[in-house]
């Protein structure tokens, strides 16, 4: 099974000045859009047609990343959570203005940064950290490690327990599931690449990764329930 691949229909033509334009036209037709962006665009279009569940998936996909981005500008975790929530509400209210000229997360992160900036200004604080955050950085922003939640001995212990449970469950998986899962989660390979490496169809890779996650999630379930009770 092939993954979703969308090719942009936009054509960019560059004409060099004072030179025969026919000779130097660089046609960048068929520039591919990443599968992530194509999926997000599909979810946005569904949200624009009134599907709140589709917007919910976008919230689930990006709330943690937005949380991590805002934590570079604001220290207090409860303030960060308020800003993240406000940002998503603003994004939802403006969803019909999103035309897909940029990736959804770039648009969302812009809203998040502006919301954080306004929040800091309203409190009379100078928004210092966001000066360094430019559009390129937003585009390339991946999950930062510095999630500035206030660590307590209890949360640290919980984190360690969850990490140990996941690692043990992953190690206990059948070899073909473990290999597919690690190639995806640790090395970040696409299903197509994993299928080539493992010499099997993409559908099999997809199934193996799902079964690996399902098995680990089962082991994790009691711990998550306990975590939810405590937190």
């Amino acid at each position: 099974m092939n993954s979703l691949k969308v090719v942009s229909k936009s054509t960019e033509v560059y004409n060099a000045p004072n030179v025969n334009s026919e000779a130097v036209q660089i046609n960048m037709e068929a520039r591919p859009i990443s599968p992530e962006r194509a999926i997000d665009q599909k979810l946005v279009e569904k949200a624009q047609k009134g599907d709140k569940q589709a917007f919910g998936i976008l919230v689930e996909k990006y709330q943690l990343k937005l949380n991590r981005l805002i934590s570079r500008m604001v220290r207090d975790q409860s303030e960060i959570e308020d800003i993240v929530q406000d940002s998503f509400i603003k994004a939802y209210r403006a969803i019909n203005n999103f035309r897909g000229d940029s990736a959804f997360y770039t648009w969302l992160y812009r809203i998040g940064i502006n919301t954080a900036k306004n929040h800091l200004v309203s409190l009379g604080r100078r928004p210092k950290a966001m000066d360094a955050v430019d559009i390129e950085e937003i585009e390339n922003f991946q999950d930062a490690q510095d999630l500035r939640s206030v660590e307590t001995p209890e949360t640290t212990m919980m984190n360690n327990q969850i990490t140990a449970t996941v690692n043990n469950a992953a190690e206990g998986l059948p070899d073909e599931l473990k290999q597919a899962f690690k190639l995806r989660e640790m090395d970040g390979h696409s299903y197509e690449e994993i299928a080539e490496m493992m010499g099997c169809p993409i559908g099999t890779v997809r199934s193996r990764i799902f079964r690996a996650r399902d098995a680990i999630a089962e082991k994790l379930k009691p711990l998550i329930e306990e975590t939810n009770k405590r937190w």
Partner: protein
Amino acid sequence: MNEKISSLFDNEIQGNEIDSLLSKKDRGSDIREAMQSYQMISDAIQGKRLPKNNLTDKIMAAIDKEPTQLSGFVATKESLGQNTSPSEYWPMAASFAALFVIGLTVFNGDSIKAGNNLVLVKSDIPEDIIIAHHASTSTNMKYFIKTKD
């Protein structure tokens, strides 16, 4: 269903699978819960610090209070190309064609009538009758100037 969610989490899902995944109502929380669990597994395996709170439920509770966004949908060129077939324009085109034909028929009918009248005046009516007719119509000055006698 969860295999599709797992593919969605990896950005490896197909467009039509998103439609089928979201086709049933009230499935949103199940999808979000599964994705949350996969996110936790992913973060743990990569040694990332795990979040204390998952905000999605709180955010979605606030979004549910918002009016559904429907108006002002802006279709991109891509989406028009993918989702709209030429057959959707046919009823509109047929209506315009019908209006055009009706308009043309009425216009031509009027001009034919006017043309016939003109020919009749020029060829069939003697000139002295026309002069007498003009003399007695309201455009004659005598009609407007009235004297006391």
